[in-house]
């Protein structure tokens, strides 16, 4: 296995007598695209919040980008990127201002920010839009830009929480090509999605049911293990076993 960028052992989070995350153990290697799947309420968001340094686990061990999730949550925040469908960019700032802001927050120098801004605008074909207000961009453009901004500071790992919800099919695919590129550069991608065709783009997938990881392998191996024609079928078989109704 390549160097583990995420490592957890029996990670658990309880809220009162409710166990949201129940002894999950897994590793994610550098440059891997790791799909984190599960039904609504399976515990994905809680687990992701712990890995991003936003919530302390009740028990278990874990490191992200080499930092301990109990003692070094601030360091974790500096070394990860995060993007979700709900929050990504500041609508009232221009394209370049968003980059300036995020670069500044992550402590990059003005020169670094300037260079990186040029590179990204060129890569995305956005050079003419540098002065456009983000709110004026079509959703698909926003999402692509948001992804580029989330890895602006070249983090070791980026967390993507349903990044493509509602995006049109063509843009959804362009978005995944950006993910492939980032992974090729060695950035680890940790992604949740409700599109089962997107699960196929991941190197490995975990599927959570009632707070536990019930399956973890490559898409091909999971299809074989569950004698399923596709990932949709694997997901349906597993998630239907869920007993808890609250999320």
């Amino acid at each position: 296995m390549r160097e583990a960028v995420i490592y957890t052992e029996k990670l658990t989070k309880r809220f009162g007598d409710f166990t949201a995350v129940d002894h999950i153990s897994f590793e994610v290697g550098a440059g891997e695209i790791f799909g984190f799947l599960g039904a609504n309420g399976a515990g994905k968001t809680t687990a992701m919040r712990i890995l991003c340094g936003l919530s302390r686990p009740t028990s278990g061990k874990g490191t992200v980008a080499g930092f301990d999730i109990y003692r070094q949550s601030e360091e974790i925040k500096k070394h990860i990127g995060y993007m979700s469908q709900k929050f990504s960019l500041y609508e009232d700032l221009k394209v370049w201002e968003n980059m300036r802001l995020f670069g500044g927050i992550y402590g990059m120098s003005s020169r670094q920010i300037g260079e990186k801004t040029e590179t990204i605008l060129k890569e995305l074909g956005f050079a003419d839009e540098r002065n456009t207000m983000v709110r004026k961009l079509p959703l698909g453009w926003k999402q692509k830009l948001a992804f580029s901004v989330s890895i602006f500071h070249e983090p070791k790992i980026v967390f993507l929480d349903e990044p493509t919800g509602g995006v049109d099919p063509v843009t959804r695919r362009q978005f995944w090509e950006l993910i492939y590129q980032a992974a090729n550069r060695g950035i680890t991608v940790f992604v949740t999605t409700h599109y089962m065709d997107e699960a196929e783009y991941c190197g490995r997938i975990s599927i959570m049911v009632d707070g536990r990881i019930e399956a973890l392998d490559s898409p091909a191996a999971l299809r074989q293990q569950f004698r399923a024609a596709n990932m949709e079928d694997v997901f349906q078989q597993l998630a239907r076993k869920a007993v808890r109704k609250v999320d």
Partner: protein
Amino acid sequence: MPAVQLRNISKSYGNLRALDSISFDVRRGEIFGLIGPDGAGKTTLFRILTTLLLADNGEAAVDGLDVVKDYRAIRNRIGYMPGKFSLYPDLTVEENLKFFATVFHTTVEANYDLVREIYQQIEPFRKRRAGKLSGGMKQKLALSCALIHKPSILFLDEPTTGVDPVSRKEFWGILRHLKEQGITILVSTPYMDEATRCDRIALIREGKLLQIDTPRRMTEQFTESLWGVRSNRMYPLLTDLRAYPEVKTCFTFGEFHHITVKADFAEEKLERYLQERGHREIMLRTLVPTIEDYYMQIAQTDTL
């Protein structure tokens, strides 16, 4: 008389043309899907049909009633589930349902049969405040509230967005049962795979109606020769396929990349080409197009 009729409906917000001369009919008793990404104009269309917004131009009728003149009568006959959660968060599950029944001069008991299948799933939490429910349960409560006055037409604006595949499947099962009870359903979704669960669908994008038909007839109009390709290196495969002269388009599609090819395409030649580029475990197969293939054929990418 169709359940819903639209004739040249247009609506702009400033310079943005949200709906551009949209015309179609929804037949009585059918599940009619509006399929399109964010920003296509789906919500604007729903708001006009539910009498919450006035169109700039055109005419629309719901249940034979005019959306402008007869708006009061329409409101009594339709159920509407907006995309955003719009129940009272401070009222409990049971209070919300009772409230909606009362507003429509009926009782929960009178129409309980219609909502039983859905409401039973949230009944264990009937004393919980609606604001404290999970996403899936909010969705079920909202549907119950939209149904409790026994509407003849149901408008559902993206009821499954952000919902996991298992709950989505369940939800479509519920819609089937409502259809069997004679309710007409107009439903929007950004998920192309849900299109096949509708009797007829309209594909819309940036305020324009692209196509309207049954899902089956729509995919039959896909005229290209479609193939699926995979290998041990899926990302480089994309670039290599796009560089190949006989390949017209190439998109990722889960396990396989989908390509459309020119008339002189030869399977063995492509396989040899890919082997030369270092690909192994190559698989090539002809495919039956899906709605998503068709949508991508007729739609362009986002443009400013």
